[in-house]
């Protein structure tokens, strides 16, 4: 099997799975229970939180365990909107956000919020000037993704943070679900108030995640209840999930440090090879994009068919983001980048992991070439 759909989900790391099983079996007590077993479980949870905080270079009480990226993004955006609406109802985001941000903003519009969706250029990057111009007195939130899940484009978060710092009344939320473990992002002293991460994109488990909430950031919680996670995320803690998340985080950070060059090399190779092909257009910018996502279009070829043809040979890639691939037609993200319709309806996405080898890429390229040729022959 050649698995090249790592932006949709990654294969769980066996040692992460092991931790999950072990914690579920041995530390099953409710961490809020007063008895000894509860105490032990709580201690494990605290240790996990401390480790996450140390890895992300933030403080322990700024870590909130969530059920994943969608929950993190919703908690951040709705949390700020509802808590601070008396001060303003204007939110800034971009046209290329993941549905868990974009659709949340759309829903808030129906509740009377006003949303500015910043456009992006052909590289999938917003304009800092336009961002600055969009900020108003009643702006309460900027929500911006770090790495785009379809294009692999990178937003200038550092500069956006500097802009946010100049407007202390507004909050900055970053969706770093695709960036974690591949493109470093500094949280400390960055102007970022909220940042969402997901476990299953870093060889952890689905249903696990972390939301960074900077000290003194007040949120209206999505869930009310037992006041767990500083009241931001009530509900009995998923201790095994939290431990698995933090272990996955540690492992991916170690690999990022040592092996990210390998991934850059592979994606450069892949981009280079693809850009030599006639009738194929690479949509991911040649320079400055994340190392694990390569998006390209084969105009005139139905992407779904290619996926099935490759799937028959145990090679797995995707069209657009898994979260929107059930909707037919074109990729909204590519359209927002200004690509022609024939490109936006024929896009394919390859996403790598640290496990991906050059031999796999070569095999994939051969299979892809064959599939495209076969398809064209049938259509002639």
């Amino acid at each position, binding site marked *: 099997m050649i698995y090249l759909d790592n932006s949709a989900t990654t294969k769980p790391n066996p040692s992460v799975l092991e*931790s999950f099983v072990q914690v579920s079996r041995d530390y099953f007590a409710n961490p809020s229970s007063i008895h000894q077993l509860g*105490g032990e479980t709580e201690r*494990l949870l605290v*240790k996990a939180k401390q480790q996450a905080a140390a890895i992300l270079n933030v403080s322990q009480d700024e870590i909130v365990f969530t059920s994943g990226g969608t929950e993190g993004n919703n908690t951040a955006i709705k949390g700020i909107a509802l808590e601070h609406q008396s001060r303003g109802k204007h939110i800034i985001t971009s046209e290329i956000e993941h549905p868990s941000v974009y659709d949340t903003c759309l829903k808030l519009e129906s509740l009377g919020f006003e949303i500015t969706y910043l456009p992006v250029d052909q590289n999938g990057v917003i304009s800092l000037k336009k961002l600055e111009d969009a900020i108003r007195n009643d702006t309460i939130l900027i929500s911006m993704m770090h790495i785009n899940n379809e294009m692999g484009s990178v937003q200038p978060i550092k500069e956006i943070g500097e802009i946010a710092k100049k407007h202390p009344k507004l909050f900055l939320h970053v969706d770093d679900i695709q960036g974690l473990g591949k493109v470093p992002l500094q949280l400390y002293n960055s102007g970022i108030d909220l940042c969402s991460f997901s476990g299953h994109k870093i060889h952890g488990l689905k249903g696990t995640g972390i939301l960074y909430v900077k000290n003194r950031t007040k949120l209206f919680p999505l869930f009310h209840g037992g006041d767990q996670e500083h009241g931001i995320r009530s509900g009995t803690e998923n201790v095994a999930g939290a431990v698995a998340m933090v272990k996955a985080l*540690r492992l991916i950070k170690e690999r990022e440090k040592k092996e990210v060059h390998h991934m850059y090399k592979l994606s450069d190779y892949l981009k280079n090879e693809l850009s030599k092909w006639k009738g194929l257009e690479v949509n991911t910018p040649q320079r400055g994009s994340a190392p694990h996502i390569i998006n390209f279009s084969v105009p005139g070829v139905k992407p779904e068919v290619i996926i099935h043809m490759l799937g028959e040979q145990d090679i797995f890639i995707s069209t657009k983001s898994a979260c929107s691939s059930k909707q037919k037609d074109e990729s909204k993200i590519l359209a927002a980048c200004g690509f022609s319709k024939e490109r936006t309806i024929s896009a394919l996405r390859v996403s790598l992991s640290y496990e991906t080898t050059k031999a796999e890429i070569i095999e994939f390229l051969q299979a892809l070439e064959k599939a495209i040729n076969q398809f064209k022959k049938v259509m002639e």
Partner: protein
Amino acid sequence: MQFDHILIRYGEMALKGKNIKKFIIRLQENIQHKLKEYPNTKVKRTQGRMFVLLNGHDPEPIIDICKNIFGIQSLSLAIKAENDIDAIKDAALSALKSGEDVKRFKVSVKRIEKGFPMGSQAMNQELGGHLLSNTEGYTVDVHQPDLTIKVEIRSEGTYITSRVIPGLGGLPVGTSGKSLLLLSGGIDSPVAGYLAMKRGVQIEAIHFHSPPFTSERAKQKVLDLAESLTKYGSSIKIHIVPFTKLQQEIFREMPDGYAMTIMRRMMIRISEKVSEKESILSMTTGDNLGQVASQTMESMNAINEVTNYPILRPLITMDKQEIIEISHAINTYQTSILPHEDCCTIFVPKSPKTKPKRDKISQIESTKDFTNLIEEAVNEIEVVKITDKKQVAAFEDLL
């Protein structure tokens, strides 16, 4: 050129006259101890200064460690160059370029080695000119620079530094002897320990544990607090006193209003015995004037009667808010506010006397002989050593 040294300045210690050597050597040892994980580093003393030789290690984590070592007034990254004008120029240029968000700079030359052919003033101009002609976008501003490039010409070489990072000040831990810290698990006592350490005191801790009334979590909380304090010194030994029997006896036999004061007196008696055994010359508490009933002038007077050991009370005149701020800064606040009962909160009399009298207490106490219970508690003390090297955590394989 790269920053290859960290220059360390010591403040108050410099005033120690004849004894200064003792302080400096201790500081050097403390730094060496904390940098054990960076085997290539070396800590060197020269006149009036100390240097950490980085030998290829990344400076940032080492700066982070040194920032928390008492006795260091401030530190700076430094480049060591030959006493040669071109080498100094090169180094100054790297120092300038390493600064973040710098537009205006100034050069400040100190010539400690008077044999160097060029005077300080002439050097300032020479170097300033060199920096301006080899960079773009910088201006010289001697009044409000974003960055001052300091150049110290010494006999062994010239040190070029830029950023000055403040340290914690204080005296090197271990230069003021040892004290036994009464560590409860609340907000105050860790802060008191920290402040004592700041004055060069090495800490051992004592904790009164009343199982099953107080939980393992309460004990763990205290171990965690002690671990936070190791960051500022070396390992900390904790004496955990089984206090249940004695405490029950006090609250059963003694009149309600006096029980709390008597319990405190017992704690001091036990602490004195531990101090004696460990050759410790004082105790440290988180007492704060007027905060609770046991911390009134009369209470402290009555409690203090049972020992002639000095009791350090670093927080005595502070406001609660000041204490909370320090506990945030030293990262103990979050642990301290965990809501686990400790021995001071389980049996709380309805109306403790806020103005107990010494002779009255002594008379009440004398109606019952506590000697055996005290002995028993002391004999059954459990000693836990918390090291500043990362403990092999129980959950390590899971995480």
